[in-house]
């Protein structure tokens, strides 16, 4: 259980580190100047890949649409903004997000479509029904059984995973019942 948390923590840390490391990419900075219409010059947007200290109209607006003494007046109206992004973080985030989403969708398809089919083929019909039925722990002492057995049995790894999965599925089923069928929480 702890390793899962450590892993989670580690991945979060990686994410933070990655975002700070990849922040400085030469493509990832820009200075964007928006210049409104001036006399007969149309409004223009200029983008240049310059550093923060050069982010002003004189450096960014090229070619200058007006002559000599008008430059100052033109530049006064321009609004220059320095912006930076980290494309690495964006790429990493989107790809990670899509892969997690994909995995979840695959697992969802497996759980809802494939598994019932496989089970039916392997065990026949009766097993399935029984499996659905054994969820209810209405006995007051069954709960105690659960609590005690949870803390004592130390099976091998595979059993543990199987057990954890079973327990998780039972929990989700219980949650689904209370949210969607009985509407006791979250409605």
């Amino acid at each position, binding site marked *: 259980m702890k390793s899962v*948390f450590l892993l989670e923590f580690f991945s979060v840390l990686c994410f933070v580190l990655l975002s700070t490391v990849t922040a400085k990419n030469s493509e990832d900075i820009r200075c964007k100047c928006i210049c409104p219409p001036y006399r007969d010059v149309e409004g223009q947007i200029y983008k240049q890949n310059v550093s923060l200290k050069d982010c002003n109209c004189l450096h960014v607006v090229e070619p200058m649409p007006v002559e000599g003494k008008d430059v100052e007046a033109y530049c006064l109206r321009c609004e220059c903004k320095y912006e930076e992004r980290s494309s690495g973080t964006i790429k990493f985030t989107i790809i990670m*997000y899509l892969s997690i989403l994909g995995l979840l969708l695959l697992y969802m398809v497996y759980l809802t479509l494939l598994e019932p089919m496989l089970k039916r083929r392997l065990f026949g019909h009766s097993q399935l029904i029984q499996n659905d039925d054994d969820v209810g722990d209405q006995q007051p002492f069954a709960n*105690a059984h659960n609590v005690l057995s949870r803390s004592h049995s130390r099976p091998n790894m595979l059993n543990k995973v199987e057990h954890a999965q079973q327990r998780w599925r039972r929990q989700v089923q219980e949650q689904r019942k209370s949210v969607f069928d009985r509407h006791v929480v979250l*409605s």
Partner: protein
Amino acid sequence: MESEQLYHRGYCRNSYNSIASASSDEELLDGAGVIMDFHTTEDDNLLDGDAASPGSNYAMSNGGGAASSTTHLLDFLEEPIPGVGTYDDFHTIDWVREKCKDRERHRKINSKKKESAWEFTKSLYDAWSGWLVVTLTGLASGALAGLIDIAADWMNDLKEGVCLSAMWFNHEQCCWTSNETTFAERDKCPQWKSWAELILGQAEGPGSYIMNYFMYIYWALSFAFLAVCLVKVFAPYACGSGIPEIKTILSGFIIRGYLGKWTLMIKTITLVLAVASGLSLGKEGPLVHVACCCGNIFSYLFPKYSKNEAKKREVLSAASAAGVSVAFGAPIGGVLFSLEEVSYYFPLKTLWRSFFAALVAAFVLRSINPFGNSRLVLFYVEYHTPWYLFELIPFILLGVFGGLWGAFFIRANIAWCRRRKSTRFGKFPVLEVILVAAITAVVAFPNPYTRQNTSELIKELFTDCGPLESSQLCQYRLQMNGSKASEGGPNRPAGPGVYSAMWQLCLALIFKIIMTIFTFGLKVPSGLFIPSMAIGAIAGRIVGIAVEQLAYYHHDWFLFKEWCEVGADCITPGLYAMVGAAACLGGVTRMTVSLVVIVFELTGGLEYIVPLMAAVMTSKWVGDAFGREGIYEAHIRLNGYPFLDAKEEFTHTTLAREVMRPRRSDPPLAVLTQDDLTVEELQSVINETSYNGFPVIVSKESQRLVGFALRRDITIAIENARRKQEGIVLSSRVYFTQHAPTLPADSPRPLKLRSILDMSPFTVTDHTPMEIVVDIFRKLGLRQCLVTHNGIVLGIITKKNILEHLEELKQHMEPLVTSPAPITHVTLPLLPTLAPVSLGSASFGGLHETWCEKLLTVPGFKPQAFFSLFSHFLFSLC
């Protein structure tokens, strides 16, 4: 370790017996405990020495530390029972017990500290673990917020097109360095292709419009479908905003799995999908839930927090602050939000930790820089123009609008949610989501203000017209004669663009109002902040432009004459939008201080605090005039969570005797005697009743109180004894006393259950006013309280009894029948699982039914009832 903790609990409870308040002065407490216990022993001996069984010298264990060490020696056979002291799902925690447990643990670590270097390190680690866990929570919630922001932006733009050069970029990032310099073409860069361009090969014309329309609906529907499917299959608890439930959990309720790993993952993933699907919802509320999940998960790393429900809630308070901090980029606002809105128990230590968590989370999000504007939120704005005194009038009007909207929204949404909860209509969550998403997408696309992302809409409404006159909102008629007017300053006559924008904004306002009512409560992650703010921002912008035009055309009015000279800056419509947003959000949630701080952290201008305060306060007053509870309290009440609101006052004159269970007509209280029950009898008591705890008395004859035992602990202990101890059979005697009762020689081995007995249950006398009882429950966070008369147990009051009582009184005082339509009585079978604190040892099923009925008869449920509610609402306005 656990054994000692457990065993110490009994001792520390005893010391608690005497002094009710949670004093930190341990020495004093212990000493007082000793004195008190002597008194009780003497009393026992004097009054009914013979009534007590021969072995009932339980004063032995009640002394101070010395006595407890003797019991330790005596009890060497007694092993710790795993699971005792934990709680069942949907149960209320006992704050007093948990806090006491923590102090005991702390004391133990402190006393061991000097023994060795290792123990000293352990104590240091223990002291630091609070800060460590909030740091981790802040890091994780900041990172997750960054992920959600980036992914939601990208997915949202996916509805319109795709970046061919790098598919992971959204529209803005795709055209990062493109050279389209003119204003008209600034959104068109070669790398970014709309779906019509990709599929049909043409960017203009009706065909491509229809194609784009179709793709927009297609993506919106598929995102919504995926979101609701994932929620339904993996984590049903991930739906909704989560704040009502977190409020309830923080007040001391257990919902297992609500803050678990799967909920966290599914909520994060589906939140992106839900936001991108264009539904009228926001990500701010769910971010609080996400942060709380992080807090809960990280608290499992530290035994100090994982084993103590009260301590865990301190972490959750800090986590919710971190959640708001990243949602709005407002660290201080987050801390205040946690304090004002969600937290129940908020000591200063938690305040500092919340502050730190909010700081860390904001720092992480800032370093990720998800929007590329070096800010934490998309709609960060900066104003530099001052405001004038006469503008307070429109601001207050906006506040009135916000309050009205809040009251209307709460009633309509609750009526709709109740319908979903109680009729067959609630059986089709997937279909409902698809339907709402389809309607939203179909209606939203033609209007540019509803087509775009709601955050972007808010940003556009908040921002003033700059040099880039891109949106229609800024198409003012240029005045050719004055050089000043052409500069883009405000106070110019509106052009046709502004008028058409007004129409579209009005339509968008109506659309948002209707859709938000039906969206909040869908079975996808859905927050309320952003849609509320959008509604307020639209209304505010409309009012702002109206005032601006008024000032332009009537600049000789006495109001405008003084402040608004022709051509000078006077009215800032963006500021009106911001004030409107704050007012609407305030009307819905009834927050005040935290809301103002959040909004002023969004603007970064201190000078707008007064307008914001005026608007938010007005909106709260107006909203409170129509119903005192905010949307979260209303949802808590709708779901029947056991939440004892600390804000409400109790003004009635009832006595504890009238509230306690059993009632006069009920069967007598189910009690256990301390030493003449057998295992079989105990089991039959447990099997036949559904109460969660039983008072333990001296004997049937004397009826005097010994302690209180919880059902869960009893079942676990019996089961444990069956497995571990030999010779425990059904006819074994069960005893709660220190020494086994004298038994015939051939009887089976008795079972000792003293370790699970709470020997210091809270008691009040039957003549205690309910005012005091309610105060005790609120301030100490009790789970149950026994009612005694001359030391004899009469009954029990649980948190749930108090809630029922409050509800009953409310019905008597102000009948909630607001609808003139015929009222349909809907009774929900209140399920045993959601009889969370049904500790009462008396059956109150009958009463329960009526309570439910009363609770649920608020507005009608017939189809026309909704409209009659609306008409009544309008009627009450006039």
